[in-house]
Structures are given as structure tokens and as C-alpha cells.
């Protein structure tokens, strides 16, 4: 199974409530909502098992006219959920925007190549 990693620009706190980074199994994926022309929210099962809660990851991206939109980002997500790269060990960095509180984070930010050209800028986890 694939496991997808998401991180906000600053990763320090959170736990099960409003974490600033998350690793989630692909089978926790619940769905997506086009929050606006440039933001899409992806929903996953809650990490702490609370049935009435869910993890919400909102990604800011380009509009449809500029090469992304809801369908573009959802397509990237579904490809990541089903990705079968022999070398990824099941660990897939979908969108890691962590730059840290210092500018020396090893490797800097990291995004899936599936997001190339989609204008992804911001990750927000709630």
C-alpha cells in the first residue's frame, strides 16, 4: 500500500488535532471538495480513529485556465494513491512545503512530480 506525506511550511506541533504534517495510508482517503477555483480540500480518515472526525488537507493550486483546477489536482492525487513505483517503498511525498523555521532544512521543500505544472503553492492541514 502507498502512504502519502503532507507538510505545511512550518512543522512543529499538532498531534491528532490540526497537525502540521501527516503520513496517511492510501486507504484512508475519503474524497475531495473543490473549495474554490484555486483550493481543493482532500479528506482522509482521522488518524486517531474518531469516527466523527476527519483529516482535511487543503492545497492551493492554479486555476483550470492556468493548467490545474479541481480536476487537475484530483487526478494527481488519484495517481499518487495508486502509484506503483518500484523504488518508492510505498512512501510517497505528495506535498512537503516545510521550509522550517530556518532556511537550512535538508533537501528543502519536496513535491511529487505529479504536481509539476499545477501551480501548487500552499498546504494547509486541519
Amino acid at each position, binding site marked *: 500500500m502507498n502512504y502519502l506525506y503532507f507538510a505545511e511550511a512550518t*512543522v*512543529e506541533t499538532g498531534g491528532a488535532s490540526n497537525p502540521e504534517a*501527516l*503520513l496517511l*495510508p492510501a486507504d484512508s482517503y475519503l474524497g475531495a471538495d473543490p473549495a474554490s477555483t484555486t483550493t481543493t480540500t482532500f479528506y482522509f480518515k482521522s488518524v486517531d480513529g474518531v469516527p466523527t472526525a476527519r483529516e482535511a488537507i487543503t492545497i492551493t493550486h492554479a486555476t483550470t485556465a492556468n493548467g490545474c483546477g479541481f480536476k487537475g489536482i484530483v487526478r494527481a492525487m488519484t495517481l499518487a494513491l495508486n502509484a506503483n513505483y518500484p523504488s518508492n*517503498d510505498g*512512501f510517497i511525498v505528495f506535498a512537503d512545503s516545510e521550509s*522550517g523555521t*530556518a532556511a*537550512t532544512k535538508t533537501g528543502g521543500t519536496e513535491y511529487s512530480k505529479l504536481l509539476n505544472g499545477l501551480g501548487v503553492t500552499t498546504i494547509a492541514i486541519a
Partner: protein
Amino acid sequence: MKEKYLYFAGIDGGGGGADASADAGCFPVSRFAGVSPITVTTTGIYFRSAMDNVDDSGGAGDLITVTHADTSASTGHRCKLIARAMGRAMNAQPHTNGMVDVCDVDNDIYFDGFSDIKGDSGFDIVITLDS
């Protein structure tokens, strides 16, 4: 299909001998729910409770809290390193017998990135089972 299981052992920064409650734990991969940072020096590894009953108080499933160095202002939060280790452990094959040692302080066995944080000041794992 066979299930894979993840083994954790350790308490208070050392090996607990796996002979008392919460000294160690073994969780099925199918129960894995996620990894997230808790504080700058702790990361949570979550499993859905085998009891399938989240506490009325809003309690959680089974939780492994890993204490590590604060690297959030330098190389990035340790949660990514732990997340990568978990992803790889859960997909480890073919040379596993069904159980993967993720973090076994008793026997000094660490999977992937856990070997990088075992030397962190304050390194510890705490297993909290749903009640």
C-alpha cells in the same frame, strides 16, 4: 492474504525488557492510521484501536509517541524521517517473516530512519493503548 506486523519495544529511553504493560507492542499494518508531529520533540504514530471504541472523552486509538531531537529549525522536523521509516517498514519485503522490527530498544534493532534518531538526546518511545 497474510498480515504484516510492526514491533516496537522500549520505555523511558531504554529497553524495558518487554515484560510489563506498555514496555512493547506489536501492531498489524492494516491498523495503521498515520504519523504526525505532536511537538517539536515528539512525533505520534497512530493505530486504530483493536477495541474499535473511541473513548467518550474523545480519546484516541493506540498511540506510540516518539521523543527525539528538535530539528524543526535546521534539517526539518523528525516526523518526516519517521514517516518514511514507517512507510518502508509497512512495505518491507520479501525478507520478512511477517513481523518487522521498527524500533526495538531491547535488542538494539532499528528500521531505516529510526537508526538516525536513536542517538538523539531524550530519545524515547511511549506506547499508549486505547482503554
